[in-house]
């Protein structure tokens, strides 16, 4: 199989390392080159999953992680840097700047990456306690029932986008102040996943919707 010379631009494009002109050239190319498009869309999905779920992917396997010095807390902090907010909390203003600069933000989903088979473990049930349903104000914390074999939990809070994916060993986690201030009235969902000490996913809670009334 011969290789298209544009293939080596895929990572540079998705990582936002191409100039505006180069980026446009690459886009024009993948509009006409199905193999390059296929590869770009698959790579995009891979990068997106790694960026959004990196903590749950790499952290539980801490014994084999290349950087054992970095604590979980530091990683959570790293995940909540303002840069992540560009992806997480999309203001129209940011959207405009980002789009005009043609800086890829790993937001889109490759339409061609079809998954088959179900490897998600859903044996034991994991129940969320609060918040759920209508809530008067932005919740202070998220709480769920303990699962026997679980060593670590990961919470995912989503609005239009994934907003927060902290991990904890407790069965309750406080919402950080900066995020509290950003949540407006509207519907959100949250979910918790339980992992064993070896990093195996043990259980996934149902996705619960809650609505902040004001």
């Amino acid at each position, binding site marked *: 199989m011969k290789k298209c010379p544009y293939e080596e631009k895929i990572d540079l494009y998705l990582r936002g390392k191409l100039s505006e002109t180069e980026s446009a050239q690459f886009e024009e190319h993948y509009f006409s080159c199905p193999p390059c498009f296929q590869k770009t869309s698959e790579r995009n999905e891979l990068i*997106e999953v790694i960026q959004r779920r990196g903590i749950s992917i790499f952290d539980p396997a801490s014994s084999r992680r290349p950087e054992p010095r970095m604590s979980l807390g530091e990683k959570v902090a790293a995940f909540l840097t303002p840069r992540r907010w560009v992806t997480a909390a999309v203001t129209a203003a940011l959207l405009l700047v980002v789009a005009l600069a043609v800086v890829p933000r790993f937001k889109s989903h490759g339409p061609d990456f079809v998954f088959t088979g179900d490897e*998600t473990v859903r044996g034991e049930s994991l129940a969320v306690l609060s918040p759920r349903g209508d809530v008067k104000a932005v919740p202070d914390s998220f709480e769920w029932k303990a699962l026997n074999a679980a060593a670590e939990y990961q919470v995912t809070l989503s609005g239009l986008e994934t907003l927060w994916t902290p991990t904890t060993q407790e069965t309750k986690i406080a919402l950080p102040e900066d995020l509290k201030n950003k949540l407006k009235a509207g519907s959100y969902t949250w979910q918790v996943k339980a992992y064993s000490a070896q990093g195996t996913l043990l259980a996934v809670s149902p996705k619960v919707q809650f609505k902040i009334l004001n």
Partner: protein
Amino acid sequence: MRESPVKIDLEQLIIQYKPVVSFKVKKALGGGNPEWEDIVNEILMQAIEKIKSGEFRGESSVGTFIYTITSRRIVDYIRQKTRVLKEIPEVQALPDPHDQVERDERAEQLAQAIRKLKPKFRDVLYLYYYKELSREEVAREMGISPARVSERVNYAQKLLKKMLGK
């Protein structure tokens, strides 16, 4: 309906270009933007109109022609949006929980597969895409050449595809 001067199978055109146009539009507007799908449909309609009316005469490739329409439509959309900018809340609530659940499901399977990779593959993905080191930095960290970094990433992706049954 007038006769098109360029022979193009319009059905085939949509099948081929809808994923590409969708990818580009979502990248520019954000996949969470509920309007992306309407915009994609508008772009494809516009392309079809231009082919039918004979405005597109095949002076460029079909891919370039559709890319041009797509870029213009995105620029227009952003211009329109600037006018109504102030009303948009900072964090938007979700439009379609079902879609979100399905996407999470797919992402979870991919995440699971990454966890099962051998350390040499998982580490390269961790350093390159999660820590966002440059290719040269990853190479130094792992004691391999930059070219090997790309090879390893490509191979990891191949393994993941296989694991997911595709």
